[in-house]
């Protein structure tokens, strides 16, 4: 079955723009890479250009960047305490990259970088490995107290500890799949409604009139997609802050 360019999955295909083959390893510059570079340029560029003048009384653009900074700083400080602020560059970069990446994907014909499971999984594994490695370095084996909730009687512990371990191991999985699933589902739904507009419109004059309905739905869905894009980036960042808190203060 050859790939039909109008089916809802075609938008997630990856094309090699600049084929680069290093000793059998495929390091090509793909359309995904292009949009990640675009995300970095737009996100970093916006933050840099708006704060370059460093006015004491900020202009409108500068205060947007400052509000974004303050929002993430207070989110991290509330979750992880003042000891967590050492992770602020990491959390801020993550939040900014995901937010800009998700929003860029809404533009028609643009590629959504977070609709690839490997991208979200790489970021989630990065977060969890940071938590585990920093947790062991800072607390030693006391980090394992995370799996032993306080106030649990002895015999119950035998059941509770494996459950706690499983729920910890499921964190990178749920973190990555949450973002991936939301982006994938949103974009597929949008494509499906766009397909309805097209197939109804092909039915003649009456069809074109009826095609307004899926078009209105597609507009409403785009609005919902904007909300979900921002929300999922926020949720990823908040969960990162909470997991970092577990590394800094491992207790239940």
């Amino acid at each position, binding site marked *: 079955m050859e790939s039909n360019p109008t089916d*809802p*999955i075609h938008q997630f295909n990856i094309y090699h723009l600049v084929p680069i083959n290093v000793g059998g390893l495929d390091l090509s510059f793909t359309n995904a890479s292009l949009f990640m570079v675009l995300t970095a340029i737009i996100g970093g560029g916006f933050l840099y250009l708006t704060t370059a003048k460093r006015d004491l009384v900020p202009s409108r653009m500068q205060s947007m960047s400052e509000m974004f900074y303050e929002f993430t700083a207070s989110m991290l400080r509330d979750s992880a305490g003042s000891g967590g602020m050492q992770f602020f560059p990491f959390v801020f970069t993550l939040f900014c990259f995901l937010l800009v990446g998700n929003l860029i994907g809404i533009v028609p014909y643009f590629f959504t970088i977070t609709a690839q499971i490997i991208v979200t999984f790489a970021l989630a594994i990065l977060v969890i490995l940071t938590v585990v490695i920093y947790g062991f370095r800072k607390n030693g084996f006391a980090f394992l107290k995370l799996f032993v909730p306080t106030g649990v009687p002895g015999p119950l512990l035998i059941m509770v500890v494996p459950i706690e371990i499983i729920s910890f191991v499921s964190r990178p999985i*749920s973190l990555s*799949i*949450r973002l*991936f*699933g*939301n982006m*994938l*589902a949103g974009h*597929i739904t949008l494509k499906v409604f766009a397909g309805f507009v097209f197939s109804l419109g092909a039915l003649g004059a009456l069809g074109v009139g009826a095609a307004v309905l899926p078009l209105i739905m597609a507009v409403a869905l785009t609005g919902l997609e904007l909300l979900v894009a921002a*929300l*999922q980036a*926020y*949720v990823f960042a*908040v969960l990162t802050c909470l997991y970092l808190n577990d590394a800094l203060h491992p207790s239940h």
Partner: protein
Amino acid sequence: MEAEAAKFIGAGIACLGMGGAAIGLGHIFGNYLAGALRNPSAADGQFGRLIFGFAITEALGIFSLLIALLLLFAV
């Protein structure tokens, strides 16, 4: 039963999981509204937690939709 038919039936069954997510979401927002009607001044302070709880619960519905989409398009 052919594999194609089984895929479509599986995708349909997988969508039932979203019912649970819908009930959970209604629970969260209903409780928030009930609390907000009792204590309106404290409602805005908890809005961030409401949105966070919504996103976490919605994720499980999305997981179920993901299984359905995987069955339809990727298996």
